[in-house]
């Protein structure tokens, strides 16, 4: 909202030396956010009013003229293409240094001395839209120069001064005053400034009507329309409003139209109470405010045709709706050039109904945006008084032929009791009763104090919901006293135990492990999945939740797995990297098991926290990629202090390669999958060259250990020896079989401490259908240092056992 400081100054006596920076700061700190303080005159720097002494043809151009212009002392030659140039005309001259927009379009440019088709030109004679005044002085045709002959000022007068634009505009963030309907107008801000600085506020004297009993307004729904004042007048006409009114309307960001419309807009901008003028000749019988009937139609001023519903409030005459109450007038009763009689509407409508209707028809207007903040009905008095003042001033012949003030639902001023002890505690400061009383009274509250109890009655303009509880009163005192005047106070608390949040710590440990230990990059993706990746990776949407208004049609499913988005991330990164590993931790959602542990009436879907990873590489050796991914999972429980998990092969994930996959189990419960993205799915995802290992586990099912569980073992007293053996096995023999055979129920040798995998090899030197596995045996004794024969014999026992159990052969060179 833009406010003119001179307009505000009409209602509150601002000191001449007012520090505007401080005003903006104080308003921002205590009331509303002042986003900008603009010295309007600066837009018109280096612009003056010039008087055209002569207009001559341009020697080299048909469409241009050379004017001699009196700029107050100096007479300069200016080349101009305007079509309405005349001797004696007052015009706006942009001198060198002024900022204009050519033909009102494009970027602002600075005027310089220049030559136009060979003739030197001092600055430029402007059209209204070239200096940002197109709305205030609309041009009737192309290339029309702004004619200022009506402004009787001497040549050389600065343009801003001549046009009364030597003003300051305060720009206020609308969002910061949604809860303050009283501030939506110049008078409201003036009242707030008066309270902040204890300055006198001008009262708007009420209009004293001659009641006309023949004229009536009916209100059918006293909840939705609490008050309706109708004034029927004759002797009006459509003509321009006075320049002062026009320029103020323009400063506030609206467009002057004609006197009848301008008065209604001016009053709204002044008081915050929208008003409307109907052409009385088009109103049949009297006005009735009622709900619309289902299917009733209304043509709006903006030519929109509405089919109404019973939730809409309409202004009607005996023929049907003439206006959408509080939102927009209809076309039938609108002000036309021939209008001579009007009905002025000064009314109050309930906020939420206005909002619903405005939204329903996508028609938010200056009026509806004010009504939907909850305007108080008492403000109609101000709006009426101001309206009548201007009607009578602009139309001395005016006759009021009908008047009716139907105030059906009286506003009740909010009354609140506040304990002064409570107030002092919450403020953290003891303010004297006099200070508290003074601050509240400045804001228009009535205050009576009896012992510890303070009874306050809010002013009418704060009683539409804004002030309703004692906390509101506390805020009023604090903000007027000045938030800067309250020092930070420390808070204390008692500790009974250390904070021990194992589940929180576990998640963090896992993420730090993946990032710092495993060298992976954490990524974030959106909760919604692209249909392409849903179809290729998940291959089913059963149990997957959807958004009713998704960000895009193909992004409607929200994730039940993190893998589709991870695959998309791999696809997008493939262009730039040929080996990388990424992980994500996020929530997944399932359309099942609805319940809530907070409220018995609430039912929330199953929501879990998953951790998923993708290892992408252009390697030909998938087994290394597999072992890398598996290793990350295998070591995770130890590093992050949680109960371990095991791998089984029970149920192939749909996206996985037919061979390279495992299920992750904790106890008997499956908690995740690990596998190679199958070539088919990978290609469908648009991943061209990379092999991708994926895992996804349900972090909600991981169990943190309360403390460390691994035990210390004594250091070996006698040396242990590593002894590598390489043996040939059938290609299908698994490492777990080998490991079991060596260390299972019956150890192959009593001296055997451990057996670990070194590597496996299939290839040229190995017979078809076989593989060579290198195994590292750890051999030692708790009683003595072993001889080499003893070590070899232990190894031989292992080899014999492998021969016997698994048909292994010693690999011959």
């Amino acid at each position, binding site marked *: 909202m833009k406010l003119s400081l001179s307009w505000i100054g009409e209602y509150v006596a601002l000191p001449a030396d007012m520090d505007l920076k401080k005003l903006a700061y104080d308003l921002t700190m205590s009331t509303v956010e002042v986003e900008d303080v603009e010295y309007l005159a600066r837009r018109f720097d280096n612009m003056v009013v010039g008087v055209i002494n002569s207009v001559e043809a341009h020697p080299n151009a048909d469409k241009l003229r050379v004017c001699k212009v009196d700029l107050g002392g100096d007479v300069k030659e200016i080349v101009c293409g305007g079509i309405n140039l005349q001797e004696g005309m007052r015009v706006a001259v942009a001198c060198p240094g002024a900022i204009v927009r050519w033909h009102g379009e494009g970027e602002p440019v600075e005027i310089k001395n220049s030559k136009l088709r060979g003739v030197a030109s001092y600055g430029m004679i402007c059209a209204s839209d070239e200096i940002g005044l197109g709305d205030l002085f609309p041009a009737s045709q192309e290339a029309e120069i702004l004619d200022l002959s009506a402004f009787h000022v001497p040549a050389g007068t600065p343009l801003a001064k001549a046009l009364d634009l030597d003003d300051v505009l305060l720009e206020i963030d609308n969002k910061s005053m949604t809860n303050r309907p009283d501030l939506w107008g110049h008078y409201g801000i003036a009242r707030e400034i008066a309270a902040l600085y204890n300055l006198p506020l001008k009262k708007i004297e009420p209009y004293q009507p001659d009641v006309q009993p023949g004229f009536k307004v009916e209100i059918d729904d006293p909840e939705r329309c609490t008050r309706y004042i109708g004034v029927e007048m004759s002797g009006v006409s459509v003509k321009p409003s006075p320049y002062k009114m026009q320029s103020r309307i323009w400063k506030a960001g609206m467009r002057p139209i004609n006197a009848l419309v301008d008065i209604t807009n001016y009053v709204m901008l002044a008081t915050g109470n929208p008003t409307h003028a109907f052409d009385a000749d088009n109103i049949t019988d009297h006005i009735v405010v009622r709900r619309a009937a289902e299917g009733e139609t209304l043509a709006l001023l903006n030519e929109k045709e509405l089919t109404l519903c019973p939730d809409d409030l309409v202004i009607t005459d005996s023929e049907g709706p003439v206006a959408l109450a509080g939102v927009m007038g209809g076309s039938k009763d609108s002000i036309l050039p021939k209008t001579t009689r009007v009905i002025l509407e000064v009314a109050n409508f309930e906020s939420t109904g206005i909002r619903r209707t405005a939204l329903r028809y996508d028609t938010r207007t200056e009026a509806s945006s004010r009504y939907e903040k909850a305007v108080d009905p008492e403000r109609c008095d101000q709006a009426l008084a101001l309206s009548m003042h201007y009607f009578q001033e602009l139309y001395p012949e005016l006759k009021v032929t009908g008047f009716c003030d139907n105030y059906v639902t009286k506003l009740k001023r909010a009354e609140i009791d506040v304990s002064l002890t409570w107030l002092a505690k919450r403020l953290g400061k003891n303010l004297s009763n006099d200070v508290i009383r003074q601050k509240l009274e400045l804001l228009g509250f009535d205050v009576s104090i009896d012992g510890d109890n303070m009874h306050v009655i809010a002013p009418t303009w704060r009683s539409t919901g804004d002030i309703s509880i004692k906390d509101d009163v506390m805020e009023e005192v604090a903000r007027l006293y000045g938030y800067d005047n309250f020092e930070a106070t420390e808070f204390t608390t008692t500790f009974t135990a250390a904070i021990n949040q194992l589940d929180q710590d576990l998640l963090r440990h896992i993420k730090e492990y993946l990032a710092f230990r495993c060298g992976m990059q954490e990524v974030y993706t959106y909760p919604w999945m692209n249909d392409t990746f849903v179809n290729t990776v998940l291959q089913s949407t059963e149990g997957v939740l*959807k958004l009713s208004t998704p960000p895009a049609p193909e992004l409607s499913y929200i994730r039940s797995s993190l893998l589709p988005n991870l695959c998309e991330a791999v696809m997008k990164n493939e262009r730039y990297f040929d080996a990388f590993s990424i992980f994500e931790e996020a929530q997944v959602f399932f359309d099942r098991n609805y319940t809530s542990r907070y409220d018995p009436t609430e039912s929330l879907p199953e929501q879990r926290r998953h951790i998923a990873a993708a290892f992408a590489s252009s390697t030909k050796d998938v087994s290394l990629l597999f072992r890398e991914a598996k290793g990350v999972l295998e070591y995770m429980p130890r590093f992050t202090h949680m109960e371990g998990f095991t791998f089984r092969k029970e149920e192939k994930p749909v996206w996985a390669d037919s061979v390279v996959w495992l299920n992750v189990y904790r106890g008997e419960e499956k908690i995740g999958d690990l596998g190679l993205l199958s070539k088919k799915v990978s290609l469908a995802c648009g991943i061209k060259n990379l092999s991708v290992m994926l895992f996804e586990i349900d972090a909600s099912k991981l169990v943190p250990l309360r403390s460390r569980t691994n035990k210390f073992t004594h250091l070996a007293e006698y040396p242990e020896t590593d002894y590598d053996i390489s043996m040939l096995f059938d290609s299908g023999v698994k490492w777990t079989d080998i490991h079991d055979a060596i260390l299972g129920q019956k150890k192959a040798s009593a001296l055997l401490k451990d057996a670990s995998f070194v590597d496996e090899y299939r290839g040229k030197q190995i017979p078809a259908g076989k593989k060579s596995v290198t195994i590292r045996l750890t051999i030692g004794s708790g009683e003595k240092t072993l001889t080499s024969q003893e070590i070899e014999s232990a190894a031989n026992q292992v080899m014999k056992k492998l021969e016997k159990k698994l048909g292994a052969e010693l690999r011959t060179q």
Partner: protein
Amino acid sequence: MKDKINGILSEAEIKIAAAANEGELQNVKSAFTGKQGSLTLLMKEMPKLDPALRPEMGKLLNQAKNRVTELIDEKRMELKLKASEVSPDFDCSVPGILPPRGALHPITQMCYDLNDTFRSMGFEIFQEDDITSELYAFDKLNFPPNHPARESMDTYWIAGHDSGSTNEKLCLRPHLTGGSVRYMQTHKPPYRFVYPGRVYRNETTDAHHERAFFQYEALIVDKDITFTSGKVMIKAILSKVFGTDVPVRMRSGFFPFVEPGFEIDMQCQVCGGKGCSVCKHVGWIEVMPGGSPHPNVLRAAGLDPDVYTGFYVNIGLDRLVMMRYGVDDVRLFHSADLRFLKQFR
């Protein structure tokens, strides 16, 4: 002959000591004990010697030879220990082999930084589900029934759960504060906790607007807390993020779930409060809303607002991270673009 031997010996001692490398040492060795070496040549003269002198001279000669060999070996060891293992051309400017260089997302990093700060002040960390009912997203937060934020244009409703009463309507949480009510319902006061999480808004995205972004909420609730206690929490956040004490101001602001409500500004860190283009020449940058939980919110959480009060702040992590690193497009955070993310490891 004896003098000759002693002469050779002292000459050998000097030459061995002077040898600067293995090559020179080899030359010294062949000059004394090689086939044409001076000691070897003396040895060959033995037969010409008086037989009575031979044993003594032979002994001396052998001793001299051994001594030279010994000195050469010592010198060789000395040279060996002194020398580098590699060629003098070894390039020390080649880069090191780096340890694994994964990283947490910059927002996670910021979140953990703040968690550590608040943990040190005795705050718990709270985490809640992303899908909530309208009951918790709005009703319990004192949002009036027709508040604009409830409409589909601002909130992502779940298909099939987007109509009916507010306990039946489900959405991706539009903010965290509803979850704070859940915390308060299930814990005993006093409370001090932080609540990081992702929230969702149905809006058009650009460099400064996202549909999914992170909030960090901190809440204390106790008996007799004044609204000015909130400044301590605000300072804790900002000094952690920016590494210095950042001046803050609290000014009037309105949010349905707090009373009084504040907009909290910090001094612009680019111009130090003097005014610049970043802070639109006001010297302050709006960083978070805050305030005392509205009595209706405390009631919804089962507390008596006459007894309990508190202070709440809710800061947008995306924006803080953008300020910390100078990131100029919020959409990069959810892009999973490694070219971006690798900058934060």
